[in-house]
């Protein structure tokens, strides 16, 4: 019996790996997700045959309630709210790991004295990581949803206080391992981890959320792997580890795309002072163009690269934008989209938003794929993007953007920028490109301006 269970877990693990492998192409990705779900189903059904399970009442109740909430969330969430959604789900994964670790400790009861060191250590780690993930993800989601101020919340001695709390967890953990009957040490560890979850995420600003979300993703995997260690269950270790690596890889990609180190994102509180510097612009003059002016340029254009930013998504302009792009394509204009790695609020978010508007994915190109093509392009149409096109990143050494890889929008023959005002982006850096001879500033809300463009082009 035990053999069948273990072999089924192996099958589930293989399905998880295969599922992730199939995610390497949009053609097979949906099947991959299905494989993952199938693996999960196998793991669950097999677990239900475990002899330790003698009462199914609480299991059924839990499964029904959880599945209903999950279903409801998944069906009603908007694509722009996907980062919050992933954050919340992440948090639940971490929360479940914490509860399992603690429930397992309670279950051991008197026998805990005989538990080996590794079980005790992983219990502590599971509680810590799980609780930090749960609370941290919820805070991140609240920031993204606007329930909390998204600007960094800073106070004196912040890093030191967090470090002290982490140290306290280590000390309490050591006390627990020494004498596992000290239940209060675990309670204290959970309590501190909960606080740490809050204090470690509040200093991180809204624009750094892609990093936080992927980091939390990684943590939730690690928490799962830790429960795997406690229960010596290989399928938990394997799947937890897969998620952990996935999160770390994405975190690394996001950090590189912003030219920042992980430590800098987590501890620097960048953006706290950006409001102060953002007001120093507005002195030079820019030329204000209308949709009619833009349409004339489009009339003679052969190739257009669209650079979408989050401003586009917020205005829900992606649908109209694609309408407009289709008109251009029908006229024989080559239209492509250039996607910066940190466009949107989480890794790959912009691709999802454009996919929602039925933009075919083969028109969506990554920065490395398209950056050399800007110089041969007639029009670069920038909508709601700011820092990712700022040439200061290449030249201005004292700029917070310096060194960040940017889209070479400035190399296109004409640059059109749809923007609400001349205000600078998150980094607070004025953009030279706005004042360039070949730049046409189209001031207005992304949706209104694109709708206007669409109307003029149709005539």
């Amino acid at each position, binding site marked *: 019996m035990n053999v069948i269970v273990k072999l089924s877990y192996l099958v589930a693990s293989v399905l998880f790996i295969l599922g992730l492998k199939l995610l390497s192409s949009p053609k097979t990705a949906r099947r991959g997700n299905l494989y993952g779900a199938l693996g999960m189903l196998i793991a669950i059904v097999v677990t239900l045959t475990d002899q330790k399970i003698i009462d199914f009442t609480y299991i059924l109740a839990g499964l029904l309630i959880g599945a209903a909430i999950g279903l409801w969330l998944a069906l009603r969430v908007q694509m722009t709210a996907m980062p919050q959604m992933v954050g919340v789900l992440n948090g639940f994964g971490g929360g479940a790991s914490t509860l399992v670790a603690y429930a397992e400790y309670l279950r051991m009861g008197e026998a805990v004295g005989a538990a080996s060191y590794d079980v005790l250590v992983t219990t502590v780690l599971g509680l810590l990581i799980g609780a930090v993930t749960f609370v941290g993800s919820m805070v991140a989601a609240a920031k993204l949803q606007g329930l909390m101020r998204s600007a960094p919340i800073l106070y004196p001695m912040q890093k030191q206080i967090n470090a002290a709390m982490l140290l306290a967890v280590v000390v309490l953990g050591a006390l627990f391992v020494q004498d596992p009957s000290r239940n209060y040490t675990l309670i204290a560890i959970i309590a501190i981890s909960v606080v740490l979850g809050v204090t470690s995420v509040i200093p991180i600003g809204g624009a750094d959320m892609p990093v936080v979300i*992927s980091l939390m993703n990684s943590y939730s995997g690690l928490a799962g792997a830790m429960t795997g260690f406690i229960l010596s269950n290989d399928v938990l270790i394997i799947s937890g580890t897969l998620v952990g690596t996935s999160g770390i890889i994405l975190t690394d990609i996001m950090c590189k795309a912003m030219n920042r180190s992980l430590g800098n994102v987590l501890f620097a509180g960048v953006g706290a002072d950006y409001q102060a510097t953002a007001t120093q612009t507005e002195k030079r003059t820019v030329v204000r163009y209308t949709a009619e002016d833009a349409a004339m340029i489009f009339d003679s254009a052969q190739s257009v690269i669209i650079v979408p930013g989050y401003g586009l998504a917020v205005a829900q302009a992606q649908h109209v934008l694609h309408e407009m792009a289709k008109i251009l394509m029908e006229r024989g204009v080559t239209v492509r989209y250039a996607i910066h790695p940190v466009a949107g609020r989480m890794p790959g978010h912009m691709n999802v938003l454009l996919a929602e508007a039925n933009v075919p994915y083969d028109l969506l190109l990554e920065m490395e794929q398209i950056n050399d093509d800007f110089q041969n392009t007639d029009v670069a149409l920038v909508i709601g993007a700011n820092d990712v096109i700022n040439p200061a990143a290449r030249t201005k050494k004292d700029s917070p953007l310096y060194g960040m890889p940017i889209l070479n929008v400035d190399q296109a023959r004409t640059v059109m920028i749809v923007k609400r005002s001349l205000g600078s982006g998150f980094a607070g850096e004025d953009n030279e490109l706005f004042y360039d001879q070949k730049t046409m500033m189209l001031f207005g809300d992304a949706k209104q301006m694109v709708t206007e463009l669409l109307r003029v082009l149709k005539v």
Partner: protein
Amino acid sequence: MSETLIVSIYVFVLATFVGVEVISKVPPLLHTPLMSGSNAISGITLVGSLIAAGEGHGGLSVFLGMFAVIMAAINVVGGFLVTDRMLKMFKKDQPKRAD
């Protein structure tokens, strides 16, 4: 170190390598579905939760187990479903287009 721990560490280290290999091949286009999908996989904690919740005798352990089942089930069901919802939207270019 116990025998089981050694095996667990083996599994952990090897899984890390598999993870890096598999995940670095996922294109940026699919990074959001990757995240929500892998997230759903992390709901595998459900397996642990089931055992905790089904142990019987009532008690705090079972109660916590049930809450763990609820949370993990939200993660699993919500995660896989929303990933599918996203992946459904990714479509290749319609055949009719001058290129």
